[in-house]
């Protein structure tokens, strides 16, 4: 039905809020990234100085490198573990819903809660290392969280723990939707279960792989809370991510233009991952 004035009027506040507070603010931040803003926004144009400075900062390069390590491992492990759990649960196991609930409940928790729990679990003084020592395995050593070369892997562990169940649920939904005729045909041909998964079922899960990748990649780029609660960026700056960098430079180091520039790059990163996906999803929805 063609919209009269009432529906148009009623959707206007939402439209304005989204246009202003999302897209208007994005443009404002992009503009700020081309100024010399420090403690407060300063609207005088300064060209790409903030970006030049950003790329020259060791803190930024470390943050970016950390994101590379964190995102690739996190996406890879969460997808592999999620798919494995989904396949295992798909074997008509007893108490299926119980297992599913257990694997998925961390998604209901705040990253601050997850970070707090893992912070002490991974702490050599009280956590797993200490526990195994008191149980008699005195040479056991696990102090990654105190080691600036290894601490980023602790962030991966906690993030994987939190989101694997979600990936599992996505794959499980995909597994339940596969074409049964092909599976039955393969079975009649005498294919083994693992062969059926490898050659018939998993190739049909392409869309789920793409969805899971997009969701995980965008979560990785946005990750902030977990790092703050787990390591607070440390030891030193060894677990800084671009999100931590942005907050630090904008709000505590009074380099607002540099902070703005870093958030623009975060947005670009997410745009590259998400926009093609949304575009194809919307087209699919439109054309059935």
């Amino acid at each position: 039905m063609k919209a009269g004035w009432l529906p148009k009027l009623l959707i206007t506040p939402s439209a304005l809020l989204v246009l202003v507070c999302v897209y208007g603010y994005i443009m404002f931040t992009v503009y700020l990234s081309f100024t010399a803003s420090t403690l407060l926004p300063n609207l005088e144009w300064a060209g790409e100085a903030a970006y030049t400075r950003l790329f020259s900062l060791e803190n930024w390069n470390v943050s970016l490198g950390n994101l590379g390590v964190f995102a690739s491992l996190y996406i890879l492990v969460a997808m592999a573990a999620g798919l494995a759990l989904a396949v295992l649960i798909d074997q008509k196991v007893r108490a299926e819903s119980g297992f599913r609930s257990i694997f998925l409940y961390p998604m209901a928790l705040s990253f601050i809660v997850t970070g707090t729990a893992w912070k002490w679990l991974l702490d050599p003084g009280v956590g797993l290392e200490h526990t195994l020592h008191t149980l008699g395995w005195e040479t056991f050593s696990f102090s990654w969280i105190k080691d600036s070369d290894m601490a980023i892997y602790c962030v991966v562990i906690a993030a994987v723990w939190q989101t694997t169940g979600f990936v599992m649920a996505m794959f499980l939904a995909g597994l339940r939707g596969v074409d049964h005729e092909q599976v039955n045909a393969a079975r009649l041909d005498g294919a083994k279960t693992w062969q059926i998964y490898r050659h018939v079922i998993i190739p049909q899960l392409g869309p789920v792989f793409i969805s899971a990748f997009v969701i995980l990649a965008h979560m990785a780029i946005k990750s902030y809370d977990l790092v703050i609660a787990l390591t607070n960026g440390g030891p030193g700056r060894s677990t800084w991510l671009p999100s931590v960098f942005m907050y630090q430079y904008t709000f505590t180091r009074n380099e607002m233009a540099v902070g703005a520039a870093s958030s623009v790059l975060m947005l670009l990163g997410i745009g590259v991952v998400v926009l093609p996906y949304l575009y194809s999803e919307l087209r699919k929805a439109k054309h059935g």
Partner: protein
Amino acid sequence: MDKYLASRVARIALYLVLVVTAFAFIMPVYVMIVNSLKPLDEIRGGNLMALPVSWTVEPWLMAWSKAQIGVQATGLKPYFINSFLLVIPAVILSTLIGALNGYILTQFKFRFSEALFAAMLFSVFIPFQIVLIPMAKTLGMLGLAGTVKGLIFVNVVYGIGFTTLFFRNYYAAFPNELVRSARMDGAGFFGVLMRILLPNSAPIIVVTVIWQFTNIWNEFLFGASFSDFTSYPLTVALNNLVSSSTGVKEYNVHFAGAFIAAVPTLVVYLVSGKYFVRGLMAGSVKG
């Protein structure tokens, strides 16, 4: 080896893997609970997996009403209340807005409606760092900086994308005949919404409310950026409790605090996990 035995072994291995993994998933919360009920020296001297020898609720009392957070020794209680004062209005408002938008976007045709929906959809994904600076300025100008009201506003604004998505997809699959026959009977704009759509929206309302509740309860970045020590949400207060404690680290109090922060969303998950999963799925499979 005969076939029957092989499949028995495979079956046992399957359950073994699942059970061991399940333990790994439960372990952190188990550790949180048992150690929140131990005196501190038992944690330092003993192992994290053991049940308490001398049980105590003192860490819970500390975390709830005595621990030092920010300036005063108030415990998490006032921040727990802040989080509820934030979450309840923000969830109600964003759900209502989502229902209205979903209705308008599916039942009416107007220019740019698809572009508008696409714009809302993308807003779900943006890294909120990109809006922090202008939003801080806006809240300052509106006099909402450092208030729970300001956080309500922010969470509603950035929740519109999700709630609209949920209702739009639900109403897009809604039988059109019902709407059309109601219109024939003379139902107007609100008539269709109130008498036809909303009464049939219970599942999606539950999904949206649970999703928004969980998201806003767990939200940290806006809380850390836009609130002060009178208006911190619980996540920010918990982080302050855990990270700022000088001197002796009171692990048991931290665990109790973390569990207190986890209880509301865990309860929602246990009571209505099915709807939580539907929200997750709807949020991941767009369009």
